[in-house]
C-alpha cells in the first residue's frame, strides 16, 4: 500500500484516498472552443516516470491534492493541496 502524506491529516494509507486523474491538465473556460475541451478531456500522456496526479482524501479531510508520483516505483515525491488559495494560506502561516 502506498502511503500518501496528506498536508492536512498526515501520513495515511492510499485506501483512504480516491484517485482523481491527470493533475497537470489545465481545464479550459466553459466558453472555450471544442478543440481546447477535446484536448483537455481526452488527450492524456502515459508517463513512465514522475507524473502529477489528483487524489482526494475521501475518507479524511476530503481535500483534493496534487501528488507527484513515480509510476515506475510508486514512490511519492510531493503532495500539496490542489487549491492554490490554500497553498498560499499554508505558505503564509508556515
Amino acid at each position, binding site marked *: 500500500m502506498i502511503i500518501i502524506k496528506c498536508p492536512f491529516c498526515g501520513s495515511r494509507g492510499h485506501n483512504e484516498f480516491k484517485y482523481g486523474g491527470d493533475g497537470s491538465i489545465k481545464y479550459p473556460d466553459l466558453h472555450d472552443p*471544442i478543440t481546447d475541451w477535446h484536448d483537455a478531456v481526452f488527450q492524456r500522456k502515459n508517463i513512465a516516470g514522475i507524473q502529477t496526479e489528483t487524489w482526494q482524501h475521501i475518507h479524511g479531510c476530503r481535500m483534493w491534492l496534487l501528488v507527484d508520483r513515480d509510476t515506475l516505483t510508486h514512490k511519492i515525491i510531493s503532495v500539496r493541496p490542489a487549491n492554490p488559495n490554500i497553498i498560499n494560506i499554508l505558505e503564509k502561516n508556515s
Partner: protein
Amino acid sequence: MTIQRVNKDNKNAISFYWNGKLLKGKKGDTLSAALLANNKLFIARSFKYHRPRGITSSGVEEGALVTLGKNASTEPNVNPSTTELYNNLEAFSQNAWPSLYFDFGYILNFLSKFFAAGFYYKMFIGIPPFEWGKGTSAWMFFEKYIRKIAGFGKASRQKDPSDYDNLNSFIDILVIGSGPSGINAALSASKAGFDVMLVEQDFELGGNYLNHQNKHKLNLLKEQLLKYHVKLKTRTTAFGIYDDKCVALVEKFDPSQISKNKIRQRLHICRAKKIILATGAIERTYAFGNNDLPGIMTVNAGKSYLNRYKILVGKKIIISTNNDSVYETALELNNAGANVVILDARAQLSNSQNNLIKNSNIRLLLNTVVHRALGKKCVKLVETAKEKNSKWQKSIRINCDCLLISAGWSPVIHLAAPHSEKPVWSHEQACFLPGKNNQDIIFVGSAAGIWNTLNCEKSGNIVNENKLNQKSEKNSVLPLFQTPINNNKSKNFVDFQHDVTISDIKLAHQEGFTSVEHLKRYTTLGMASDQGKNGNIIGLAIMGSALNKEINEVGTSKFRPPYTPVTIGALASRNKDEGFKLMRRTPFHEWNKTKNCVMIETGLWQRPWFYPFESQKLEDASCNEVKITRKNVGICDVSTLGKIMLQGPDASIFLDNIYINSFSKLSVGKARYGIMLRDDGFILDDGTVWRISEDCYLITTTTNQAGIVMSWLEELSQVRWPDLQIHLTSVTDQWAGCAIAGPKSRKVIEQLAINKEEVSDENLPFMGVKKLKIETIECLIARISFSGELAYEVYIPSDFANSLIEKIWEEASNFNGCLYGSEALGTMRIEKGHVGGSELDGRVTVDDIQLNKMISKKKSFIGNTLRLREGLIKPGRPRLVGIFPIDKNSKFKSGGLLYTSEKISGYPIGWVTSATYSPMMGHYIGLGFIENGLDRSINEEIILIDKLKSIKIPVDIVSPQMYDPEGKKLNV
C-alpha cells in the same frame, strides 16, 4: 528403512491420526517429524504420475503434500514439514485411490510419455491425425477423467467454520527470520533504542539454531530478546512486502489452543521503517534417476530431524554433496549410530573438513555423485557416477536406507524481489544473490550469501554501519544440478510437486520455449504450492546447459507474493458475512421493519423494497402500493437520496456552471429539476435543487451517484474554480426524507401542519419549498413529484425521524393510505417516463432523453461544449421511448433488444432499459432507447428479443409519458 527416535521416553506424547490410524508423536514435532518417528516415510502420491513420495525436507521447500482435517475444516495441500503437531490432528495422504499403498493412478507412471510437458496445450489443438487443428472433442471427453486422477488434494465445499482476524501495526524495524542473523539483528536494533518486531514462520524461535546440537547459545539469546523488549511473533510468516514497506504477515495461532469459535489466523499488516530480511537459505537437491524416492531428503533435513526432533533418519545413510556444509552433519549422524558414506562431487577437501571426519568411520568418496537411486517404496540402493580423467562414468553401487542430498544453498530473496533489481547469479557460490534494492530493505545472514554461523551472527549487527555493507563470502562449491550421465531409463525430477522432469525441460527447449517465463508456463515448473523453492534453479540450469548459456543469462522468473500459501480466509479476515461490506440504514429503518418491510440492497443502503400484506409476493404487493398511492396516498422512504447543502455568495454561479439549466433566476422558496453533465457531455446525474435562502441551496442527487457527485463538486470547487466563494456540506445522513404522494397527500400534510393554510395550493404551489413545523420540529417540505401524483417530499431531522414518521403514517392511514417501497416507486416513474439510473447509464446525452429544451442558452456549463460533438448530435441516435407489448398478455424484462421485423439478428436498433407491470395500464410497459426515437415510421413492426429469457414479442413504440401525459394529476 529404519527410522527411530534417539530418546525413547514418553514425555510430552501427543496422539494424532494418519489416514485414520491412531499414532503417537511428541509435543514440538512437526507432522513430518511425527510421521518419520512412526516409520511413515512414504506419505504421498505425486501430482501427475502417482509415484510414491516421501518427506523430502524439514521446511517450506517440502515436496510431499497432505490434507489436514475433515469435512468443513479440510485443508488440502498442506506442507507436513511446517505443520505443527497437536493433539488429535487428523492428516490424510492425497491424490491416491483406493489407497496410498495400492494406487490405481500409478498406471500413469508407465503412460508418462503421453503426459509430457505441453500435454494440455497439444490436446487443446486436437489429437493428431484425426482432429489436428480442428478442435478438441477428444479433450472434452477425456478432460473429466484426467482431472480426477491428476491433481492435488480436494478442498471442502462447505463453509469454513473458522474465524480470522486482522491487525495493523507500525514499527521501527521489522526483522523477518529468527536464525543466527535475525536474532542478533533484532537485539542490536533493540539495544540501540529502536522499536523492533521479530517474526518467525516456525512455531519456535531460533531458525537454524534449532538444528544445532547445542542450544545453549539460543537460550541465552532468547533471554536477551525478552530483556530488551523485542516484540516476538512465532508462527508468523511474512508472505509479501508491498509498497512503502508495507509487510503482509499471516499469524497462525497455536493449533492446540484453538477451540471452536476462536480465531485461527490473523492477517497482520505491518508498516516498518526498515525491514531486515534474515530469511536464511534453502538447501537444493539435484536431478538424478528416481530422485523422488521416499528416503531421499536434504542433508539439512537429516540434521534437523536428528538435532531438533531427535530422530535418526536411517541406519545406512549416504550423503551426496558438492559443498562443505554437510560434514558437521555427517559426523553428528555417525555419532548417533548411523553408518555414513559421503559422496563429494569435488576433487578435494579443505583441511578443516578432512579433520572433522578424520577420526570417525565415515567413508568418503571424492569425484562422485549419485547417478540413480533404486528401490520401490523407499530408496534401497544408489548407483554412483565417478569422474575419471574429466569423464564421468558409472561407478559402484552402494546399499543404503536413506540418501541425503546437498547441492548448494539458495538464499531466500523472494520477499524483496518486487522492490529490487533482478537477482544476480553468483558463479562462485552457485546461487542467486539479492539484486540491488531499496535501501530500507536489508539482507543479513545466509539470505545475503553469508554461510557460517559466526559470520551470520556478525552480519546481524545492523546498527554498526560498517557491517551494513558486508560482502557475501567465498564458499567452496562445485555447481551441481543434474547427474552428469544421460539417464533416460528412469525419471529425473526437477520439480517434485508438479512432476516436472529433466526430459520435460529438454522438450520445452526442443519446442522453442526457452525463455524462463515460457519454460515455467510450458512445463509448469515452479508453479505448484512451493513455487519452485527447490526445483526452479535446477530447471534454469538444465535449460542453460541446453542453450549453452550461464544461468545468469537464462535469468530467473520473477518471485511474487505470497512466499508460502495463504488461506483465503485470512486474506478476507473479518470482511465476510455481515462484515463483507458496510451497511447503511435509513433513519426510518427500524420503523420500516415494524411495518413488515422487505429490504433491498442498493449500493451500501438497505432500502425498503415493498411492504407485503401477510405473505404477498413482490408484484402483488407493489401493484397494490401503486394503486393505493394513485387513488389515495402513499408514503415512501427516500432518505437514501444524496443531499448536499451549498452555501455562499457565489452559490448561484456555481449551480449555473454545473447544471444544464439556469438557477440564478430561481426564487427563494422554489425548487427546480436539474441535470448535470460530465466534462465529456454525457449525463452525470439528475435531481432537484431547492433554494432555501438567497445564498443557500439544497442539492439532491440520485441514491447511486450521491458519493460521486459530492466528490465531483468538491473537485470543481477546490481545483477548477477555487475563487468561487461557496461551501459544500454533505447532509445526506442529517435529513430523513419521505415522499408523500397521491391525490390525498395535501390532506395528510394539512393535518400535520399547525396551520392548514401554510400548505394550500397557493402558499405551497408546485415546485414550492418551505420550512414546516410538524409537532415542534422544523422540517423542510417541497412540492415535487417523481410519481406523477400531487406529491411532497418532507425532510425531517434524522433524530426525530421515527417519531414523526409515525405521526405522518397515522394521518395517511386515516385517508386509506399505504407505505410503498422502491419497487412501486420504480413502477410509477416508468409509467410517467421519468428517467432513472438504468436510463442514465453514463452513455446518454440530454438530447437522447429528449430534455434538450431544459438547456439554457444564456450561459455555458460543464459538458456544454463536448455534448455537441459530431457523434452525439447526429440524427438517428437512439432516443428515449416508451414500449408497449402488442399482445397485452405478454411479459418482458429490461435488457431485451429491439429489432425491426426485417432484421431480427445482429446489432439491434434499440434496447429496453426498464420494464414493469403497470397496474394502471393493465399490462407490461417499458422504457428504452431506439434509433430515431418517436420519429420512426408508424407502420414499422418492432420486435423485442431477449435471448436469455427466451422472449420474442412484437411491441409498439410509444411516448415515454405513458400515464397521465398531460400531468393533470400533479395539481389535483
